[in-house]
């Protein structure tokens, strides 16, 4: 099967039941996308499938034939996506493990909603756990990125 990862054409011929997460991490050695729970409960493995935030740990390869996948490594060529900039301005990360997933999840909110409210942010981000507790900074960084203040 054919698919695109961060704009690059790829071919996959392995186990169709294997989740995308392990294709990214083990085969492509793109380890920016993290394993946290394996059950789509924590969001650490979030990537975009044709622009939709999706948990890669529960997504079999068979479901993504022909799709275009974006990972944290491909979110922005210079790692200067407004959210990445805002994340740095607000010193969001602590340990950093969940942050790829947080940023990928937040990016699809901003793509649809230029001025999300606190409630909308909480609803959109509710599937992404951060055990360090960076939630207040995630909220603020998303709001700033939405306002374009992070540029």
């Amino acid at each position: 099967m054919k698919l695109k990862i961060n704009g690059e054409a790829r071919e996959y011929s392995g186990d169709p039941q294997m989740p995308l997460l392990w294709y990214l991490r083990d085969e492509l050695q793109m380890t920016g996308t993290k394993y946290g729970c394996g059950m789509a409960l924590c969001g650490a493995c979030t990537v975009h499938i044709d622009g939709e935030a999706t948990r890669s740990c529960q997504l079999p390869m068979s479901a993504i034939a022909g799709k275009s996948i974006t990972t944290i490594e491909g979110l922005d060529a210079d790692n200067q996506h407004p959210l990445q900039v805002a994340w740095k301005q607000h010193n969001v990360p602590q340990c950093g493990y969940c942050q790829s997933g947080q940023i990928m999840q937040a990016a699809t909110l901003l793509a649809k909603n230029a001025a999300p409210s606190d409630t909308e942010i909480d609803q959109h981000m509710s599937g992404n756990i951060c055990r360090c507790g960076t939630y207040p900074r995630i909220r603020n960084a998303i709001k700033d990125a939405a306002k374009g203040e992070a540029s």
Partner: protein
Amino acid sequence: MKDIISPQRRTFLKQTASASGFALGLTLLPSISPVAAEGTHTESLAPNVFVEFDANGQLFVTCHRSEMGQQIRTSLAQIIADELDADWDRVTVVQATGHPKYGDQNTDGSRSVRRNLERLRIAGATAAAMLREAAARGWNVSPDDCINREHGVVHTPSGNRVDYKSLIDVAATLPVPEPDSVSLKPRSRWKFIGKVMTSVDIDDVVSGNTTFGQDIQLDDMLVAVIQRPPVMFTHAESVDDKKARDIAGVVDVINLPEATAPAGFNPLGGVAVLAKTTWAAMQGVKALSVKWTRNEHTGYNSDSYKASLIATAQQPGEVVRKRGDAPKALKDSGNVISATYYAPLLAQAPMEPPAATARVTTDSAEIWACTQTPQSTRSNVAAALKMPEDKVTVNVTLLGGGFGRKSKPDFSVEAALLAQQAGKPVKVIWRREDDIQHGYYHSVSAQHIQATQDEAGNTLAWRHNTVFPSISSTFNPAATKPSNGELRLGFIDNPFAIPNMQLERGEAKNHVRIGWLRSVANVYHAFAIHSFADELAHAANQDSRDYLLSLIGEDRHIDLAAEGAEYDNYGDPIDVYPIDTARLKNVIRRVTDMADWDNRKVNNRFLGLAAHRSFLSYAAAVVEVEVAEDGTWTMPNVYMSLDAGTIVNPEHVRAQCEGGMIYGLSCAIGEISATDGAIDQTNFHNYQVARIQHAPKHFHVDIVESTKPPAGVGEPPTPPFAPALANALFAATGKRIRELPLPLTLS
């Protein structure tokens, strides 16, 4: 002019040398070029194990503590760069492997800054002095007329300046000054200490360019996933691994050695599936059919255990601290107030489940692990492989959270044993289910407190019995009482000036591995003590803040030894870090001022307060709640005032306050339980942790500016949170929550 910020300096130098039995870092042996031993550079100035300049004048700072979100790699670099007046853009942080030459590396107990501020200033100042000397020789002037400025040395009378890079070869030939002889900058000239510096790792984190323990990839490596015994110390009676071996990619199935008491840092045993890919290993382990033995722990059920723990707490215990005669005062009083508090087992559940990779040859081993404890990883791996310690190298990756789970090296030992047997590098991955079901749990606790008040509402007697299975049981099965080490965590150091006080402990047997979790026993002790303090305030019909201040009493340094209590003060001297009630009261006043406590009733706001000293710091929290008609509650605002003495990076301290409170919230709403000895919870759908929608809406953090010696930061914000929250819910609803987990919807 010497600037000695702490009277501990000399003692500390002696202690460090003797504690490890090794003349490390601070004796600055000129023959040691330790960073070069890490294989990074060749020509260099390396006066000690923490500081090295390469020939281009790039400053390499070796961070010997593990990075798990506290930004220690940044803070320790700030300390060293400060004395050198370095250019921050020319500083590179090198992560140390596990080795005694660095002194203690066990990154727990909130002590990375408090134990290293002074010694790393000296480490930096030593190199700074050598660079001044090198410049002075070149100019033929006195080094006393030279200062370190902007990554170079300036001759003050002439204004001449030379960059460090031109001084490296000469400086490298100079004798290394004795630590006692180097002068330290005065605080007024600190350049990086006390300043906000962005994390050195932040660019990598936001671009996904990070290497955690789970991310290690070696050529020809196998991935192992392990099915561990569901009940501690049971073992596989029979294993049918045919289906597992049939899965494409599965290479081998290996039985790990059976575990017996004490648990220690040993693997739990079980059956490992080794495969070429993570997915195959995960599929393989699911396909195993294992019959497990039964043992005494199979009878462990949380419901009946809870009842027995509470029954023990309500009986008299063994007295561990006594002032006056609390039992008599209670007996003589017609007005005894009492309450029992309960808190369940918890799992640390760092976002990154444990993972370790091992490459083992016949005479050496190398480990890559997300470990808080590279030194005990090294010693435990060496012991398991029957290899001398100096043949084992432990590389420390970034840690996707630790919270105490990764201060146990069991997962690295698993990887080492499997790599040895497989004859190939092996990465052991813990799935989330493994992490939640086979952890070293935060202990389950029952506490009973009785008090009596006079007619004016003054508390005259306080009798508190604490009962929980001890961390000591993990290392000694005969340990059936809370250890002194745990009683010191917020129990025996109770700061209340009540004339009659008796503190007791009771017996509790362990049935799971008990371990450390952020703030450890402080979490449940603060919950009980500060919930009950609030209950006493209400019984006396007094303001909770005022009553708490009166319970704490006059400004004084508490002398626990005078009351027969053993207290180690988190391993630091009590004269340098006294239990100072003035500082505790100060954070209470500051946090309640910030929260507009006095006007809460006119403003119809429901606030709860708690304040707790731990890890030598003073933290006070106010939580505001709103409770909806359906019983759901939210926190519009939370407030924290923290006095941690001298701090290195205020932004990171603030972040620890925010995150520490949210961790405290998770501790209040989470629960691990067992049925027939096996843990009931498996993953984040049935082990509840705080999500963004549960988090308080607004955080207000106040860091007390202080020149006092540095104290802990990572843990102190957590303990006061749950009691402040429960007290706020009482203020809003009149319902007292004495048992955790605290429901997200009140009934």
